[in-house]
């Protein structure tokens, strides 16, 4: 299932499947709030969270998305360190 993680990499897992909007976004934003330096968040979600992407990019986060089993998505999110 870890389609986005390279061998040996780790990330905090957050499963927001089966939740009604905007609960997935609420939980993702709350999790990002507590993300430690260098830590990454791996989100399992039913839909591609297009509205979230704008918020992530505007706030200095990077993300990678993969379709897991033809229907559900996995999004890996991390904060880009500022120089």
């Amino acid at each position: 299932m870890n389609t986005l993680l390279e061998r040996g990499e780790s990330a905090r897992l957050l499963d927001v499947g089966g939740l009604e909007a905007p609960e997935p976004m609420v939980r993702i934003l709350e999790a990002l709030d507590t993300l430690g330096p260098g830590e990454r968040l791996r989100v399992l979600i039913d839909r591609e969270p297009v509205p979230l992407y704008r918020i992530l990019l505007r706030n200095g986060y990077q993300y990678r998305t993969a379709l897991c089993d033809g229907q559900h998505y996995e999004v890996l999110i991390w904060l880009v360190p500022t120089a």
Partner: protein
Amino acid sequence: MKPLDAPQRALSFGGNPPLSLPMRYFLSAPMFAALAAAFLAWQGDAALLTRWSPLTLAITHLLVLGCLSMTMIGAMLQMLPVVAGIEVPRARLVGAVVHLCLCAGTLALACAFWQESPPLFRAAMALLLAGLVLFVGACTVAMWQYHLPGSGAVVAGIRLALASLVLTMILGGVLASVFAWPGLIQAPMQRLTDLHALWGMLGWVGLLVIGVAFQVMPMFMLTEPYPKYLTGAYSTWLFILLGGASLSSGWTGPGAALHMACLVLLAAGYALFGGTTLYLLARRKRPRADPATLFWRTAMASLLAATGAWLWSAAAPSGAAASAHTPLAIGVLLIVGFALSAVSGMLYKIVPFLTWYHLQDARSVSGRKPPNINQIIPERHAQWQYGAHLASLLMLLAACWQPALVRPGAALLCAACLALWLNLGSAVSRHVFNTFPSSLHNHE
């Protein structure tokens, strides 16, 4: 663990239209529907005798332009940036001008039909064409830009719906010209009116509802995603069938058979969407019948009933099915049963979502945690409003055959629309105006 109320990292949601932009559309729409219903209640059964009566056309346009198109344009201006990352150029100004033109143009058109007044037809044409051309132009410029990956299906649906709107506008413009300059222009009125209604209801309204449903049903109603055979080229096929039905209209001999085949395939296509949506709603994990779900079930049941009634009247061209009652009943099923129900169901999800989104965005200023989205509009109020809407739909359907029911059915629909306006308006005023008196306009 961090307490839930702690101020959150000030993530900027930025770039979205101000809340006042879509809300002016969403709060105008129920008022136009209430006005249409009040007009029907006042005029009584004279306005529900035939689809060709000027009174019926005045009411129909108050509903389809003032309520349905109003909501859909507001939703589109809001959805393009949030869902697809597409910036509509000068969104505030475009949104305000289009809204004004649509409000004034719809009122002028309804009065023009009612009074049969050429100057009012000319005024309505100028206002509506200016507003709709500005809207379509701004959306076209916007959709040339890069859009976020994952939003392709929605953007494709919006493109087809916009193309249908352009065709509806052109046909409507030609028809209005006949009334605006009497005697100057000759046109095959019945054929053009049928095509205008076809592109308006099944193209502009139908294709947009389908495109939005693909996005909204799994997101808010927690259904499984729509099957691939619907989200793929299905909408494009419906659009091609609409084109085929238009080009072959008026043909005789084998051409008439082709026209009928296009219409039957269109009816089957829309029935497939309605049936699949009802199936997905029945199969979801938490099948709680909240008001939005009830509205969507009603919308899909009405769509199936309208296609069934049309097939029945097409298969039996003489007798009871071919009377003036059946086209009126199909109109009531499509406009009030399908489109108004779908729009109401969508508003009950979109307005609380936008209110929540606005409060969440403004959290860095207010320091307050937004309320739970389900508390923004009390469910009990929405349930009552749904009950009134359903009862008025059933009464207006019966009124197509039993004229005594026109006035009570229309009065009930008027009450239901006012209650919708009250439910939506009080949610926004309670949560936004009272919390941040100036943020509705300033926060962007």
